[in-house]
C-alpha cells in the first residue's frame, strides 16, 4: 500500500499544489478582511449601504476555504483518476500484478488524505492570520473555534468532494468533474441556507458527507468491475 502511494506521488507532484494552496489562502484572508471592512456597521449602517455582516471574518474565510477545497478536490480527482481513464493509462495499470480494487482504493485514500491535510493547514493559516490582523484592524473579527465541529465539517466536506468523481466518470471527463464541483461548492458553501453555509451545520454536513461517500463507493465498484473495452 505504501509503495503504491509513493508511485502515485511520483506521477502527480504535489509541490505545486502546496504552493498554490498557500497563495489561495492568502487571497482568501485578504478577501475576507476586505469584505468585513465593507460590511462592518460599527453600530450604524455599513459604508456600502448593505445590511451589516452576520458573520465574523474567520467564519467567512472558513466558508470560502471550504468552497475552494471542494473544487480543489475535483482537480485532484481529475489528476489521479479521471485522467488515467481519459489517457488510457488505466489499461496499463491493470496489467500490473496489483488488484484493481487496491489501485483505486489507494487513489481515493490519497485524495482524501491530501484534502484533510489541506483543510487542516488552511484552517490553521486562516485562524493565525486573521487573529493577527484583528489586533490592528477592529473590523476583522474571529470567534473561538470548536475543534470537534471543525473536524466533522472538514471530513464531511472531503467526502462530499468525492461526488464529482461520480459525475466525471460518466463520460471520463475532467471538465465535467471540475464543473460539477463548482456547482457543488456553490450549493453547500454559500450563506443563503444558513449564516455560514449548509456545511457549517454539523448534521447537514454529515448527511452531505454520507451522500458523497455513497456515490464514490458506487463509482469505485463500477471501476473495479467494469470492462475497459475502448
Amino acid at each position, binding site marked *: 500500500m505504501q509503495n503504491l502511494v509513493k508511485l502515485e506521488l511520483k506521477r502527480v507532484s504535489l509541490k505545486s499544489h502546496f504552493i498554490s494552496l498557500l497563495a489561495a489562502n492568502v487571497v482568501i484572508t485578504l478577501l475576507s478582511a476586505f469584505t468585513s471592512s465593507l460590511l462592518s456597521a460599527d453600530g450604524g449602517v455599513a459604508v456600502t449601504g448593505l445590511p451589516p455582516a452576520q458573520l465574523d471574518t474567520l467564519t467567512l474565510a472558513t466558508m470560502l476555504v471550504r468552497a475552494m477545497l471542494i473544487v480543489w478536490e475535483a482537480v485532484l480527482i481529475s489528476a489521479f483518476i479521471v485522467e488515467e481513464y481519459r*489517457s488510457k493509462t488505466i489499461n496499463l495499470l491493470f496489467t*500490473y500484478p496489483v488488484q484493481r480494487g487496491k489501485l483505486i482504493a489507494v487513489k481515493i485514500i490519497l485524495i482524501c488524505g491530501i484534502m484533510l491535510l489541506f483543510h487542516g493547514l488552511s484552517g490553521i493559516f486562516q485562524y493565525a492570520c486573521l487573529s493577527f490582523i484583528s489586533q490592528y484592524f477592529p473590523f476583522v473579527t474571529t470567534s473561538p473555534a470548536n475543534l470537534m465541529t471543525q473536524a466533522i465539517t472538514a471530513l464531511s466536506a472531503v467526502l462530499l468532494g468525492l461526488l464529482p468523481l461520480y459525475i466525471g466518470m460518466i463520460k471520463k471527463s475532467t471538465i465535467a468533474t471540475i464543473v460539477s464541483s463548482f456547482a457543488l461548492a456553490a450549493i453547500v458553501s454559500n450563506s443563503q441556507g444558513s449564516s455560514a453555509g449548509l456545511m457549517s451545520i454539523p448534521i447537514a454536513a454529515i448527511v452531505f458527507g454520507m451522500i458523497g461517500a455513497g456515490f464514490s463507493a458506487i463509482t469505485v465498484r463500477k471501476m473495479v468491475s467494469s470492462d475497459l473495452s475502448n
Partner: protein
Amino acid sequence: MTYAVETSHLSKSIDGSVILNDVTLRVKQGEIYGFLGANGAGKTSLMKTLYHIMAPDAGTITLLGERVEKGNHSVFSRIGSIIESPVFYQHLSARENLELHCGYMGAGYERIGEMLAMLGLSETDNKAVGKFSLGMKQRLALARAFLTKPELLILDEPINGLDPQGVMEVRELLRQINREHHTSIFISSHILDELSKIADTIGIIDHGSMLAEISMTEIAEKGMNLETYYLSLLGGGGSHAKPC
C-alpha cells in the same frame, strides 16, 4: 504440458455483439506465436481478455500455468506487454515512465539504462514522452515490456508506427530475446509478411472465432506460404477484410 498462454472456449460479447466466440488457443513455452487477423477480427480484445481488462463471459485463461481469474493477478509480474497502443504518462520522461513500471512490477531500476540504449532511446531519456514521435513511443513501449525480463511477452501490433529500419531491429530483438532467454512471445499483427518472418506457430482469428492454429512448418509442408494459406482459409478473401 504447461503452456505460456492457454485459453479454453473463451467467449465475450459487448452490447449484444460477439467479440470472441469460443476461442481456444495454446502458445507453447519458448515459442513465438503469431496471432493474425484483419483489423477488428478480435486480436486486441483477446489480449485485453487475457489481462481481464475485459472479463470473459465464458471460458478459462491460463498464463504460465496460473489460472487468471478476477482478483488473482500475481502472474502478471512474469509478463511484459503492449496492449492496444503504447500509453505513457506524457509529462514524465522515458526514464521516469520506466521507473514507475518497475515500481508496479516490484523490480529494480538497474536495467533501465540498458533497455533505453538497446532501443536507441538513450539520448532522449530525460525528454517528456509527450514530445516523442509514434515510433519512439513504440520503442519505449517495447523497452518497458522487456524491462523486467518477463517469461512471456504479449505484444499487440508492436511494429505499428515503426520505420522499416525499426521494424527490422524489433524483429531481430524479438528473435534474440526468444533465443537467449527462451521468452515465449505472443505477438499479434495484421501484417502477414512480418509474422511469417518471425513466428513458429500462427493462430488465425476472424470475426472473433479461431479459424486455425498451425505451425509455419506445417504450412510449408502444404506447399503454401502464410498468405496463400490465409486466403485459402477465407475462401479467397471474399467478404472478409484482408490483412496486409
